[in-house]
């Protein structure tokens, strides 16, 4: 579903992605972790070309993302993305947030868009808030609406860029629950997160990135957490710091 071949990216003279390659099959849930500055967020944003790359190839469902001739809006409309800071549209109600792209991008009628949007809103348990503005919701609620907004577009894959990092600790659970449900339904997901509990529970694979944009590990969840001795020293150091003792 997602294929990345030898991708490199620079900001000026600073290299932020260094020869990254990965492959995500349909229905797989892949967690990307690593210290800050390792390029995780940049990596996930290259998949729908929010961040362009200078070298390498990226394919999503066979479409060449790196190709200048690719119709990026069309590709992006099929790739759901959830951001660290939610990025709901503050000037629109929850319902309008859910429907605007369905109508303007997919060309759905208002009734159809609304029906689909409200169904997704129900799924994340926030139907009662449909007429509110994002500013009236808690962080956790906003992030759940953001997930519903992405799902309303019927994406073939979902990208999560640190979806719980900006949340108060007690709101992390409600967002992770929604994500666990999605994974159980077979959604293809790539998740940048430090939530190792989530990685352990639902991921198939874990990718570990280190400073400078290197992919240091790309291995099955069981191997990653079960065979820590076989990990790179840098990975062990990182896990020692963030896993509960």
């Amino acid at each position, binding site marked *: 579903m997602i294929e990345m071949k030898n991708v490199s990216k620079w900001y000026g003279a600073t290299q932020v992605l260094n020869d990254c390659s990965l492959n995500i099959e349909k229905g797989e849930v892949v967690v990307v972790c690593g210290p800050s500055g390792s390029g995780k967020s940049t990596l996930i*944003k290259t998949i*729908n070309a*929010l961040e362009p790359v200078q070298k390498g190839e990226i394919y999503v469902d066979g479409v060449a993302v790196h190709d200048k001739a690719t119709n*990026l*809006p*069309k*590709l*992006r*409309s*099929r*790739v*759901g*993305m959830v*951001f660290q*800071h939610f*990025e*709901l*549209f*503050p*000037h629109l109600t929850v319902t309008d947030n859910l429907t*605007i*792209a369905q109508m*303007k*991008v*997919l060309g759905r009628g208002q009734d159809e868009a609304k029906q689909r949007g409200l169904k997704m809103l129900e799924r994340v348990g926030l139907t009662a808030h449909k007429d509110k503005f994002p*500013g009236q919701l808690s962080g956790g609620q906003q992030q759940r609406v953001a997930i519903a*907004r*992405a799902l309303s*577009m019927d994406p073939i894959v979902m990208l999560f860029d640190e979806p719980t990092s900006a949340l108060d600790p007690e709101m992390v659970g409600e967002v992770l629950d929604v994500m666990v449900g999605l994974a159980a339904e077979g959604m293809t997901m790539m998740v940048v997160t430090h939530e190792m509990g989530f990685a352990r529970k639902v991921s198939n694979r874990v990718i570990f990135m280190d400073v400078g944009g290197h992919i240091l590990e790309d291995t099955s969840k069981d191997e990653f957490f079960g065979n820590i001795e076989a990990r790179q020293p840098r990975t062990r150091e990182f896990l020692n710091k963030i896993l509960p003792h």
Partner: protein
Amino acid sequence: MPALDFSFYTWANISTYLLSGLYFSVSLTIAATIGGIALGTVIALMRLSGIKPLEYAALWYVNLLRSIPLVMVILWFFLLMPSAFYNLFPGDIGQKYRAEICALITFIIFEAAFFSEIVRAGIQSLPRGQTFAGQALGMTYAQNMRYIVLPQAMRNMLPVFLTQTIVLFQDTSLVYAIGAYDILKGFEIMGNTFGRRVETYIMAAVVYFIISFALSMLVKRLNEKIRILR
């Protein structure tokens, strides 16, 4: 110095000399604000388009007009625009309202330079993530601007727009240079007619003050409201 005498401000005199002038000043302000924001938005979008020729054209437009006194722009336009231009308007409207048409067009052109900088600041002050979010949902550049970026930029900039409109209202008095009949002109004629120039200029100042001050209060309230919305 003779005592001040305001007794000639009867309703009949006010409606004869002042109301049409006030009407023109206010309509010019409103029309120039709307036209200036529309043209200013286009210029701001050109400036941010990333297309070099458009960027430079917009940059020069803004820099040029911000460096020339408004009264000169008005005069130049009035003196240089050939008579044929005014014949483009239906009937004798063009020739009859030459000064007024000239005033409206120059104000829109001039104010667009200022409004475009406000729009640009409004767009650039939005978090980058909002653009990302629109893009990630598959919106094109134009859709993102139209539905996500501009509505927010405009809303956030509303108080600044109004502040600029207050300046604009005061600047409308500059149309005296080409003899258009605005509120100040009305006061001037009234003063000459009754031989009471001091009183008329005092009253003119009072009228400008009341309107501008009322608008300033409105800006203050809007600012508080927008702070809550954010």
